[in-house]
């Protein structure tokens, strides 16, 4: 907060009110409702409901398909973070070195960032369709690709669809991070260390840690939440529910299955996961990275 501030009794509330009002009605009300749902059991016809304690939570923990979704979400976010992060970093390092065409590369690589995940999913759908799909044909010739039966093939499908546009985001932020490193630091390191590759890993990469860390969080959040549009337009969770993310499963159980209790409990479990990631971010990693 500022050292110098306005002293006023009322006008601060005038500035805070619009946002607080919107948050209370459209965010806190549904959240309270979520907690209520999570601790009540509704009968199948929606006529009555009663307090259920932790029954909904016990139910999802005893449900094997919840663990399948959990496993898939973890694998999915790890793989997407790794693939998009490393390709984004590789491209950003190259783009930072070239003199000519830098802005052209930048513009053309940033472009897919703006495309909606659901649109990417619809596009991926065409490339993986049995009838027209180029990638389907390619993989089919290599090892007999069949995503609606083989879990591994379905993983490849949603990973390619999910990673593609996210490369752009990683590229933008890594490039900005690289450009923020001071020229003098790089020049000094050239004198001390002749090897390009060693210099990158010992000098440049540690200096990029804040960016890397920021991107890990961005990518995990993306894989958790934004990929909904991708799953819903590609595999719809098939084969079985092997490619359902936690968010997708909660949606299917709540909206299609009308099981509000289970959906509420699943939402609360996800809030806990997000909370843990955030605490991890502040406590553990932020203390260990170098800021320039």
């Amino acid at each position, binding site marked *: 907060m500022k050292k110098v501030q306005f002293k006023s009794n009322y006008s601060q509330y005038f500035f805070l009110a619009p946002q607080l009002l919107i948050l209370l*009605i459209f965010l806190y009300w549904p959240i309270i409702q979520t907690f209520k749902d999570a601790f009540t059991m509704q009968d199948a016809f929606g006529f009555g409901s009663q307090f259920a304690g932790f029954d909904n939570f016990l139910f999802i923990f005893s449900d094997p398909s919840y663990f399948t979704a959990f496993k898939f979400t973890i694998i999915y976010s790890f793989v997407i973070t790794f693939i998009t992060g490393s390709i984004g970093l590789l491209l950003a390092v190259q783009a930072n070195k070239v003199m000519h065409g830098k802005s052209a590369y930048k513009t*053309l690589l940033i472009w897919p*960032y703006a495309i909606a995940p*659901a649109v990417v999913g619809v596009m991926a759908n065409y490339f993986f369709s049995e*009838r027209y799909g180029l990638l389907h044909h390619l993989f089919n010739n290599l090892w007999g690709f069949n995503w609606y039966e083989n879990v591994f093939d379905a993983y490849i499908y949603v990973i390619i669809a999910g990673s593609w546009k996210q490369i752009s985001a990683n590229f933008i932020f890594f490039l*900005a991070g690289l450009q923020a490193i001071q020229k003098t630091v790089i020049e000094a390191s050239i004198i001390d260390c002749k090897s390009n590759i060693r210099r990158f890993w010992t000098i440049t990469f540690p200096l990029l840690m804040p960016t890397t860390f920021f991107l890990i969080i961005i990518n995990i959040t993306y894989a958790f939440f934004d990929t909904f549009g991708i799953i819903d337009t590609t595999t719809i969770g098939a084969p079985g529910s092997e490619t359902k993310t936690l968010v997708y499963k909660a949606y299917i159980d709540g909206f299609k299955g009308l099981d509000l209790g289970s*959906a509420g409990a699943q939402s609360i479990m996800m809030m806990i996961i997000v909370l843990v990631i955030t605490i991890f971010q502040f406590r553990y990693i932020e203390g260990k990275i170098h800021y320039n």
Partner: protein
Amino acid sequence: MTKYISLTINHFILSIGLLIMIVPIWIIFASSTHSSLFINTNGLQFFLGDNFIDNYSRVLFKQSGFFNEITALKMFFNSFVMATGIATLSVITSLMAAYGLVYFKVKYATFIFWLIFITLLVPLELRIMPSYIVMSKLNLVNTFAGLILPISASAIATFFFRQFYKSIPDELLEAAKLDGTNSLRFFIDFLIPLSKTMIAAVFIFMFVFGYNQYLWPLIMTTSEQYWTVVMGLKTMYGSISDRFAFVIMSMIPPVIIIIFLQKLFIQGIFQNK
């Protein structure tokens, strides 16, 4: 000599990156200029056909949807209203809330701070069902307000503006106070002009975010009159080349915004890093 070799390698790697990002879109675009009959017999195309105007005008003006009640043009209009509404509302409320948090002594400041920022932990996807129930209690299903309000309920922009205000030197307020400027004047005459870049960046970010929403419009619109582009993609029926054309058109607004305003956007994000 080695310098040229390494530069060549740089350009080579970048070109592969470009191919990965552009070829898929090009193939869909090229295919969208052929007739459906041609696509169905020959598969996806790499070269342009001659049905461009036919396909695109048909998609824009034809009645489509489950009950044939909406044209793609109307969906673009809906998406535009939704995205603009979300961007405008969240910029205004966040700008004000951040000002209230940074420039005033507020009673229960910590409590209000947490009340606002803990919401970052609960994205819309986590409260989708209860949000729908709340909206139907408020009679906001199938309205623009219903599409806009829950998505504007986000503290992400407040977070950005707050960081930005904190980086503004205290002397500015001291000087303004000496001149007897009141808080509303200071906000309008000093802070808003200073935050122009930031406002533009947040507006672009929220516009693209709003335009790209998929799940919320899917749930909130039972009437086809309120369908948006991104959700309409999956539900729209039509021949294969119609669908290709619609995919391409759906990307145009956000992509144009990002390409032309990328400098502003990136500047805004990194101004407070």
